[in-house]
Structures are given as structure tokens and as C-alpha cells.
């Protein structure tokens, strides 16, 4: 892959060409053309991003057992289409300052989060992470620190950084999960400075600390970092998801905070119960919004 010329690499599924093309389309094409383009580009990636498609289908087999294979492929296409919409709408927000309807489920928990003196927002690859962070900072006037996995393509990573800077208007600070120990200390400091830290807790990458958990009756590994951070800071964990509820319409779902309390037991034991609670919350949300769980690498 790395031996290929740069211009050709940019056409890889996670390459820069597609993101640039999307920005161009949002800037140059009237809004009534967007459903047409989103549909066909979703179809294009559904056929050509085979690894991602098979990962989604394999997840659907576990989330909705007993379904026909063809049904799961159609559902996978729906997931791709939703993903394309979230990318397109994030670009619309960035390029055209488009406005969105925004509803909240779990308003009391959200109020507590907004007023919190240091909190961890635990979320998933669901709905729009980037747009969600931008909407959150815009509506509630609170800065947020996002932890995300870096894009594998260097140029795409630069493009995403710039896009996040634009959508967040300076209120969204981005940290990368590859930063290791430095990141842990930075996040701990941020929490002690009463900031909100947002982490995705549904996927484990090679360099990320993890602990065993159960999801849909299967043994999986989930990131343990947020729970250790919560224990050390100490700070509550707010499960929060931003799901797409329709055309230019998003829903912020906040669940009851999870508190990690230090006891005489080992650290692993202290975080076991909170992690189980998180996996139950995650499971419920994924079951309800399976078409917006953008886990394009195999989890089960």
C-alpha cells in the first residue's frame, strides 16, 4: 500500500480524496441534490469497502440474531447510508454553517453534566462524534476535550484535524489515543481543572488499555482507560450518544452517570462493576440504533 503513489493512496477507502470531494460537493452542490449523491456514494462504498461491509454484517448477526443474510446486507447498506449522511451533514455544518434540530433524551443528566466540575463523557462510534461535540459546545457553551483514534492516512488525519478545528470553533480540543502515558496525565489534569473529557468506549485499539466485558452475550474487550481515569480523578462517567434522528436532526441521548468508587479491593475489581454497567448501556443503545453503530472493524 505504502509503495503506491500518493495520489493513488488518497483514493483508498480512508484516503483524503473522498473527504476533499465531499467538502467540494457540500460547497458547490445545492442541498436538494444531497440525498441523490449520498445514496449513490453509499452504494459505491458498500460495494468497494468490503472489509467494513463484512464487519457490519457480522455485528448485525450478533445484534439481531435469526435474521436472514440478505436482510443483514440490506441493514448494512442502511448503516453505510447513515454514515454517509453524518459525514455530509458534518461537512454542511463546517462549510455552510448549516443549522440542525437538536433534541435531548435524559435532560436531567445533561444538566448535571453541563454543571459538572470535571466529567468524562463516554460514547461510542455512533451517530456523529465530531458534529455531536461541535453541537454540544455550541449549545451548552462548555469546552470539550475529545480523545480519538488517529486516521491511518497522514493527509486524512491533517484534514480531520482542520475540520474539527472548524466545526468546534476552538471549543473542541482534540487528543489522540496513541499519545500513551502523556495523554493519561493530560486528561487527568483536564479533569482536575474541571473540564469535560470525551472518550469513545466501544472499540479497543492495539495500544489502548482494555478489560474483558460482555456485549450481546459475547466476550469482548472494552477500553478500561476511562474507568481508571474516573477512579483516579475522581470524576463521574456520563454515557452520551449523539444519534441522527432525521434529515438535519440529531438527538443527544444521555444516560445516568456511572460512578467509579475506590475500595480496598484491586483496581481491576473496582472498575469491573462500572464496566458492566457501561456494557449494558452500550448494548441497549446499539440494539436501538444498530443502523448508526459505525464499527467498521470486527468487534465480536
Amino acid at each position: 500500500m505504502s509503495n503506491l503513489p500518493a495520489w493513488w493512496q488518497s483514493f483508498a477507502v480512508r484516503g483524503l480524496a473522498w473527504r476533499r470531494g465531499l467538502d467540494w460537493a457540500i460547497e458547490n452542490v445545492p442541498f436538494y441534490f444531497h440525498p441523490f449523491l449520498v445514496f449513490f456514494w453509499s452504494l459505491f462504498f458498500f460495494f468497494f469497502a468490503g472489509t467494513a461491509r463484512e464487519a457490519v454484517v457480522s455485528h448485525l448477526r450478533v445484534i439481531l440474531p435469526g435474521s436472514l443474510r440478505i436482510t443483514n446486507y440490506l441493514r448494512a447498506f442502511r448503516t453505510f447510508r447513515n454514515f454517509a449522511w453524518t459525514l455530509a451533514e458534518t461537512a454542511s455544518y463546517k462549510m455552510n454553517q448549516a443549522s440542525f434540530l437538536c433534541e435531548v433524551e435524559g435532560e436531567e443528566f445533561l444538566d448535571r453534566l453541563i454543571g459538572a466540575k470535571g466529567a468524562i463523557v463516554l460514547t461510542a462510534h455512533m451517530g456523529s462524534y465530531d458534529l455531536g461535540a461541535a453541537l454540544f459546545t455550541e449549545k451548552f457553551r462548555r469546552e470539550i476535550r475529545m480523545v480519538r483514534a488517529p486516521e491511518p492516512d497522514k493527509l486524512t488525519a491533517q484534514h480531520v484535524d482542520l475540520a474539527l478545528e472548524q466545526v468546534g470553533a476552538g471549543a473542541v480540543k482534540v487528543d489522540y489515543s496513541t499519545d500513551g502515558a502523556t495523554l493519561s496525565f493530560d486528561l487527568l489534569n483536564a479533569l482536575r481543572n474541571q473540564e469535560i473529557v470525551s472518550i469513545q468506549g466501544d472499540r479497543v485499539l492495539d495500544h489502548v488499555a482494555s478489560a474483558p466485558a460482555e456485549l450481546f452475550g459475547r466476550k469482548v474487550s472494552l477500553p478500561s482507560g476511562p474507568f481508571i481515569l474516573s477512579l483516579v480523578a475522581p470524576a463521574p462517567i456520563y454515557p452520551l450518544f449523539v444519534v441522527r434522528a432525521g434529515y438535519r436532526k440529531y438527538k443527544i441521548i444521555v444516560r445516568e452517570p456511572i460512578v467509579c468508587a475506590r475500595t480496598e479491593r484491586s483496581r481491576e475489581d473496582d472498575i469491573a462493576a462500572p464496566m458492566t454497567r457501561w456494557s449494558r448501556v452500550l448494548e441497549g443503545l446499539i440494539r436501538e440504533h444498530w443502523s448508526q453503530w459505525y464499527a467498521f472493524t470486527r468487534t465480536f
Partner: protein
Amino acid sequence: MKNEPESSAGFYFALPRLFNLWRGRPHQVSEACVFEAYMGSVGIFGVTYLFAWVLFAGKISGWRMIFAAALLIPAVWVFWLLVLYINALFINFLHGKGLFRQITNRDAQNIYIGVILTAFALHLSILHGWERWIGIFCLSGLGANFLAMIMLVMTRKRS
């Protein structure tokens, strides 16, 4: 909590705006209307597909007809990608020459899309089959939208 979308200037779908104006409802353009977004997309795809069908596949039959029907779907998509790109180059050329600089790229594309769609609808409207009614319906819609746009511009200038 609910945040209403803002309205922006422009006249993509002027006809419903004019009806709203007459009924005393908000008539500023909003890009947040799902019905308009999908109606535009389905209309563009439908008319283009029908035009391409009449042009390339109207006289074939059997399995070749099924093959052509399937092939025309991505062909319409690729056609519009090329058209949008060529339009953008032309718009940039005009802007570079200092012409129509007050019109944004998207609004200029809207004009080009309207012209192309009108040409397709016009072609369909002079045929003898059922396709002509779709052409006539589309031309009527585009014409009414154009008139509504003029009326809205005049109303705005007066107020």
C-alpha cells in the same frame, strides 16, 4: 430543548415559499426541509433516467432491456457527477473573469441544473407515449417555480 433552523436567502423551491407568503406563513428559504431535499433528488434522478431510457434503451427488448435498465442507474449518477464538475469549472472561469461574482457556486449550479432539467423535460414533452405527461408535468413545475421566484423577488424589492 429544540433549536429551530435558521433561514437563508435563495429561491431553490420558490413555489412553496410563495404559497407560504400568501398564507401569511414564514417564506424564507430553509435548507432543512426534508421533503424539498428528497423531492429534488427523486425528481432529478427520475427525469434524467427517463430521458436516458428514451434516448438509449427505448428500442431494445428482452434481456438487453433489463441490462440497460440496470446500467442506466449508475450511468445517471456518473452523468450528474461530470455535469456538476464541468459546471463548477465553468462557474470558476466566469468568477475568474469577474462575472456573476455575487452568485455563489451553489446558486449558479442551481441555475445550470434547472436549465439541463428543463431541456430533458422539454424533450420528453414532445414524445408521443406516456413519457410526455411526465415531461409536461416537470415543465409545469419548473415554470411555476420560475414564476414564483420572480414574484418573490418583486415582493422583496417592494417591501
